[in-house]
Each structure stands twice: as C-alpha cells, then as structure tokens.
C-alpha cells in the first residue's frame, strides 16, 4: 500500500525534479527559461533540503560549464533549459562528450527556431539533440509522455550518464512540462540507481583517467582530490593530454561512438499499446504519444487494428526494433510536432519506406487525436 505522502499531483517539470532527487542529484546550475523554469524553481527548494547545491548562473553557457566542472569533482549533475538555451549549451555539451563527463541536460521543448513560440509546445529539437554540437559523436536522448515515466526516465538518464560517462539529453516538451497529473514516488530501491564508478587506484599512484577497464568503462577520480590529471576537449591519450597521433584520434572517436551505439539494446526503451495484431501502427513520443494512444483506444473499440509504438529512447535511434515491430504493417504513421524528424529515422529503419507517413502539427498546439484520425482515414482510403 502506498502511503499518501508518496502521491503527488504535479507538473511534469516537478516529476523530473523528483526523479533527479531519487537518482541522487548533488548539483544543479541553470538559467530560467519558459517552459523549463519550474525544474529550476523546484530544485532551488529541493536540493538544499538534501544537502545539494543549487546555483543560478549568468546564462546557459555558464550553467553548462558549471555542471561539467561539478560532475568532474564527483557530483551527479543536471541543468535544464529550452530551445534557445539548448543552442547555447551545445559547445560545452560537445566538450562533455569528448572529455566523457557524466551530466544530464533537460530540454523542455518549445516552438523554434530562435526565441520562437516560448509558451507553446513543439518537438522541434529532436535532431538538435542528436547533432547540435559539432563533430562526430554519439549521444543519448530520452523522452516520456506521462509523469510516472518522466520520473523513471530522469532516473534512467542519471544512470546512463554514469554508466556510459556521457551527457544525456532529456527531451521533454511544454505540454508534459506544464500539465499536472498524478505521480507516485517509488520507494527507495524500486528503481535501481547507478552510482559513480570511482577508481581503486590509491593516492600517490599513477591514475590514467582515460584508460578503460576490460569492460570498457572508465573509473573516475574526483577532480582536485587524490590524483592530478588533465582534462581537455582536444583528442587525448590515456593520461588526458592532447594528442593528434592518427591512431589515438581514430581510436578515441571510435570509442566515443561505440560505447553508445554498441549498447542500443541496453539504452533503448519503448512502450507498446495494442501492437500484437496491429495492421496500422502509430509511432510517437512525448506529449504527442498521448494523442496517438487516445486515438488507438478509440479506434480499437470500433474494430480498427491500430497499435502504438511509443519511443522513450530517441537517440541512439532503435533502428532494429522499429524495423522488427513495423514488419508487416499496412502503414506506419509517425506522430510528432515538427516538420518530420523521427519520421526520417523510421523511413530509414523499415523495409517499405513508402508506407511511412507523417502526422504532424507545427502551430504550437498539441496534435489532437482528430488530426491523426484524418490522416489515418485517408491512408485507409476512407476519406476524411
């Protein structure tokens, strides 16, 4: 039996905060921006309560720098922002990729480009999460459509950041961030929490910050504590010192990409609704998945074999899983609030890209079940 103290009625942004607290966040730095501000606001209260540190920085660039530094010194860290702020964070995000520094960046998406449509929903930053920072790299980006899942994927984001020593992007959106619904806070231990892997090398003995163990993981040493070492955004050797030897460069880049792309099966998370016998499949994520599920439940009651595949991991894209789930479907409709970002990935994944369609909305309004239904009827040859 859950006691009532564990039941909240909160915004998605607060569900994200509670997830971060559960995962063991120690430090948050940020700069307020709609529609992500409540994450910052609630952490300003919650972090000091558990002995953590909260700091409002002068801008988003500094916030990103602050969490990277704090992470290196042994803390679990996070920042939160929206489109324009996410753009500003990209350079430092690439640094965190290169220097392999665990951190979580929440981007509560609003309409863009530029300052765009601050108070309205969008899912236009999916590709920015993947390729916003320059150069070849891999990234993890997670998303969710309800508060219980927002909580869960926030914990997952912290866990993956530690496991793979990488920045993890939480791609929420304005609808999820701002709407209120029930959240049941899990008991400690219900969701596993991954702690920082620290080196067993003793003080005074040479520590190689970038020398992987046999399992490929890199134990960390709290910066400024027991070992002296170098951290750089340049290609580097196992001591962390700059090195542009072709072998070092290619080996490091492969490592940065492979540690994530080779673990797609571990990182990939999705949910299925009425998928077993689905002839038509809706693929969606975030708040638009709610409309897809709403429509599918409604159509099922009328005998239409419609299923929903809800993606929770957007990057690395679960190509194999999508290919397998969509095999044999008469049509696949990708429901998203942008000009078609995930639909491109789905077309790449499936055997018959000509059966993949985009149901989108880009006017700042949440796509409705009726919007999707109109397209579905057209595809079924029934007219609207």
């Amino acid at each position, binding site marked *: 039996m859950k006691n009532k103290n564990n039941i909240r*009625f909160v915004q998605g942004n607060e569900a994200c905060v509670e997830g971060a607290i559960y995962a063991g966040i120690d430090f948050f730095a940020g700069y307020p921006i709609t529609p992500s501000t409540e994450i910052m606001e609630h952490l300003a209260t919650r972090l000091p309560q558990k002995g953590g540190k909260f700091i409002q920085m002068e801008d988003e660039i500094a916030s990103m720098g602050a969490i990277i530094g704090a992470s290196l010194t042994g803390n679990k860290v996070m920042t939160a922002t929206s489109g324009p702020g996410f753009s500003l964070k990209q350079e430092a995000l690439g640094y965190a990729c290169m220097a392999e520094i665990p951190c979580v960046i929440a981007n509560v998406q609003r309409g863009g480009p530029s300052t765009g449509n601050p108070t309205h929903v969008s899912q236009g930053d999916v590709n920015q999460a993947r390729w916003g920072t320059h150069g070849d790299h891999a990234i993890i980006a997670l998303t969710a459509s309800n508060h219980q899942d927002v909580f869960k994927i926030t914990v997952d984001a912290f866990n993956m950041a530690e496991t793979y020593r990488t920045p993890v992007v939480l791609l929420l959106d304005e*609808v999820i961030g*701002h709407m*209120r619904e029930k959240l049941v806070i899990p008991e400690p231990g219900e969701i596993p929490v991954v702690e920082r892997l620290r080196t067993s090398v003793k003080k005074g003995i040479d520590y190689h910050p970038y020398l992987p163990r046999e399992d490929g993981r890199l134990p960390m040493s709290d910066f400024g504590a027991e070992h002296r070492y170098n951290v750089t955004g340049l290609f580097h050797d196992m001591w962390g010192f700059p090195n542009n030897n072709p072998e070092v460069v290619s080996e490091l880049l492969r490592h940065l990409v492979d540690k994530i792309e080779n673990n797609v099966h571990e990182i990939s998370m999705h949910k299925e609704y009425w998928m077993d016998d689905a002839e038509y499949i809706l693929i969606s994520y975030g708040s638009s998945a709610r*409309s897809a599920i*709403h429509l599918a439940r409604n159509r099922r009651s009328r005998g239409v074999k419609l299923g929903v595949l809800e993606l929770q991991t957007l990057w690395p894209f679960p190509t194999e899983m999508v290919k397998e789930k969509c095999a044999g479907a008469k049509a696949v409709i990708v429901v998203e609030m942008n000009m078609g970002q995930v639909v491109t990935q789905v077309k790449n994944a499936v055997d018959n890209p000509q059966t993949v369609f985009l149901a989108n909305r880009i006017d700042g309004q949440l796509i*409705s079940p009726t919007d999707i239904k109109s397209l579905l009827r057209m595809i079924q040859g029934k007219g609207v």
Partner: protein
Amino acid sequence: MERSRLVFSGSGGQGVITAAIILAKAAAIFENKSAIQSQSYGAAARGGSTRSDIIIDDSEIYFPKVIQPNILVCLTQESYNKFSAIIRPGGLLLVDSKYVTIEKKVDAKHIALPMYDTVIKKIGKPIVFNICMLGALIGVSGLIKPASILKVLETTIPEDFMEMNKKALSLGLEMGKKEKY
C-alpha cells in the same frame, strides 16, 4: 462515471488556475480518479483571458486538452464571449452574475450565480472568490465531494486562511445546490 471535461475561464488574478488545480488534485488524490489539469499560457503575465482545462474520469486519460467542455465556467464577460461557443451540447455553463451578462443562447444549462457579490458581502475578501466558485460548481454538478476539496485546502493553505476558505466553499455549495442540472 462519465468523463468530465471542464474549462475554467476568467481573467488573470481571479484564481481560475488555482481553482482548477485544487479540483483536479482533489479528484486525483482523494477520490482516486484519473485527473489532468493544464492551462494555456500567453507571453503576458497579467490581464487578458486565462483558461484552464481539467479532465476527470475513472479510466486513464491520454489526450490532456479539452476541445468541447461539458462544464464551462466563465468569470468575465471577455472569457464568456471567447469560450461560450465551445460548450458541448447539453452541457453546463456556470457564470458569475456580476461579471457576465449572458447574451446568446447556447445549447446548455445556463446558471448565473452572484458568487462575487456573496463573497464580498459575507466574507469581505475577494481572494476566496475562486473557492466559492468551486463550491457552487460542486453544488450544482456533484462532481466530487466537498470534503475532498477541503482536504486539498488543508494541505496547501496556511491555517489562518482556512476558515475563510471553508466559508467560501460552503457559501458556494449552498448557492449551487439550489440549482438543478
């Protein structure tokens, strides 16, 4: 129960959004129903018309917005003019009689109650206008138990303000119960 789709509208500062959160929270936590509250934001912080959507149901709610409310509450003329057309046929329209003059007839039960005036006369503080409105709404519709609202208030409102809120809720309930829907 049948799915209840509500829209609360008024002007910024009337407590429309707060009332919506209290109602949805009461249903979700104290009556074990599914409930979702959302609101539309503009870039401006004051004035203009505010709108908050609430859905309450026994089963899971996915699409969180209300397109056609079966209950519409309007606390200003501007919000009435803007939203009265979206009400579901046969629905309930609740307005404050001081602020709203019902102009065109829509296919819904119209109820105009002197909520603002009653609060000013009996309590003297407009701050609990929204709680009086919640009382009236529950009185008319029986949507949830008044006790559930009180439980939410107890957990969110400073003790010194509790008495005033209780009174506003019961004033609303009295007015609402006299109406038939």
